[in-house]
């Protein structure tokens, strides 16, 4: 495949940054999107140019490190996958691919396509945990949990914190991420004890970090690589009202 890439290049967080065009030839349709970028970077290094910086780690779609905005969609033109699981067969020969970093005030660009997502860590520090030592795994059914709640909590816990929800949201809101964390813990007996303090603190922190507000547009749900549902946002709202009133 021959491709034209239009990639956001930015020297550091303080630089202005701009799009640079690159031509790539003979890319295998079976290669992953990140492998395609590896090929580009090898070419750039061999020409003594700066390679394109992007985050990646497991390349198995489970760590949440990779993430970029490809042709107007986080993680590119496929659903329920991260960008490392996106393959070049999803594109056509001769395509122009526009690649941008996540855009949000809370996620400043570090360099090129890499953004600082420590705002998510700060949110977790506000309550995305259980503050007692739970010890080793208990015997099965020693703490009874209704199957329905266990399933919902497990679905919410699938969030890998990649930031696609913030990137996709027209308001750069972190409601789906926080909704997933709140749901995952509030639905289980171990997390229920601290549910109200957790939701109050996380919501305050979310505003403090400069994330936008939820307008129930649903772009987060549409782009989430783990299929986290919008119902988690409604549960976040319910938990918040319960804590406040």
């Amino acid at each position, binding site marked *: 495949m021959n491709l034209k890439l239009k990639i956001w290049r930015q020297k550091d967080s303080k630089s202005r940054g701009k799009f640079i065009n690159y031509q790539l030839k003979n890319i295998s349709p079976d290669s992953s999107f990140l492998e395609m970028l590896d090929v580009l970077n090898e070419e750039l290094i061999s020409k003594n140019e700066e390679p394109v910086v992007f985050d990646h780690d497991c390349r198995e779609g489970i760590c949440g490190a990779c993430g970029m905005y490809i042709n107007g969609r986080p993680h590119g033109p496929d659903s329920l996958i991260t960008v490392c699981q996106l393959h070049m067969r999803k594109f056509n020969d001769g395509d122009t691919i526009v690649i941008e970093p996540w855009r949000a005030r*809370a996620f400043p660009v570090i360099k090129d396509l890499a953004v600082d997502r420590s705002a998510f860590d700060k949110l977790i520090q506000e309550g995305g945990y259980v503050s007692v030592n739970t010890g080793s795994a208990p015997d099965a059914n020693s703490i009874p949990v209704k199957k329905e709640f266990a399933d919902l909590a497990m679905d919410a816990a699938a969030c890998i914190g990649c930031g696609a929800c913030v990137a996709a949201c027209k308001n750069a809101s972190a409601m789906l991420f926080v909704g997933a964390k709140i749901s995952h813990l509030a639905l289980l007996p171990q997390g229920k004890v601290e549910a109200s303090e957790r939701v109050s603190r996380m919501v305050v922190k979310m505003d403090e970090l400069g994330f936008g*507000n939820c*307008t*129930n*547009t649903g772009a987060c749900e549409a782009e989430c690589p783990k299929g986290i549902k*919008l*119902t988690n946002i409604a549960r976040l*709202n319910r938990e918040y009202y319960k804590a406040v009133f």
Partner: protein
Amino acid sequence: MSLAGIFLLTFLLVHLGINLLVIIFDDPMVYNKAAHFMGTNVLIKIFEIVLFGGLLLHMIYALILQVQNWIARPKRYNKANYSNTSFFSKFMIHTAVIIMVFLVIHFIDFYFKAKFGHAAEIHIDGVTYHDFAAEIEDKFKMLPFVIFYIAAFVFLGFHLIHGFQSAFKTLGLENKKYTPVIQFLAALYTVIIVGGYSIMPLLIYFK
């Protein structure tokens, strides 16, 4: 925001009910009497202040949230908005501005005339009624006016179809069982409002 929105949704139904009096009874005095009641009853006058409060609250909240949302993404995407998602929700602030322009014109046309007494008067049994029915007939005989009003109702519909169900989600009311019902009600409500409000100008114009 959502509570004020739901409050305004109920007002739209009340206003529609009064409008339909003109059509159902086909007697201008029924409408004039209803308008007279709305303009003079003390309870309604108190409710009017609550209504304007609700509208103002809805607008102020919307403005604050919208500005926060714009600030949350200082640098826009070069290529954006390709996510498969609710279309009308992306344009709530735009439809809101259109509805506001409509409201200003609508107020100049009817509400201020009622308040400051520029409408023609009818005296029956010593009571003075403003002849709003005639006022409405005059306005809706003009085609541009009819087109403008119906266009405004369509935009109102775009605003309502998302706003209705979004308000419930914000209040935390979303689950597998009820959300489809709420979405159906949102569509039904929108059709009733847009259709119901559009019938009056159309009927008067073609009468």
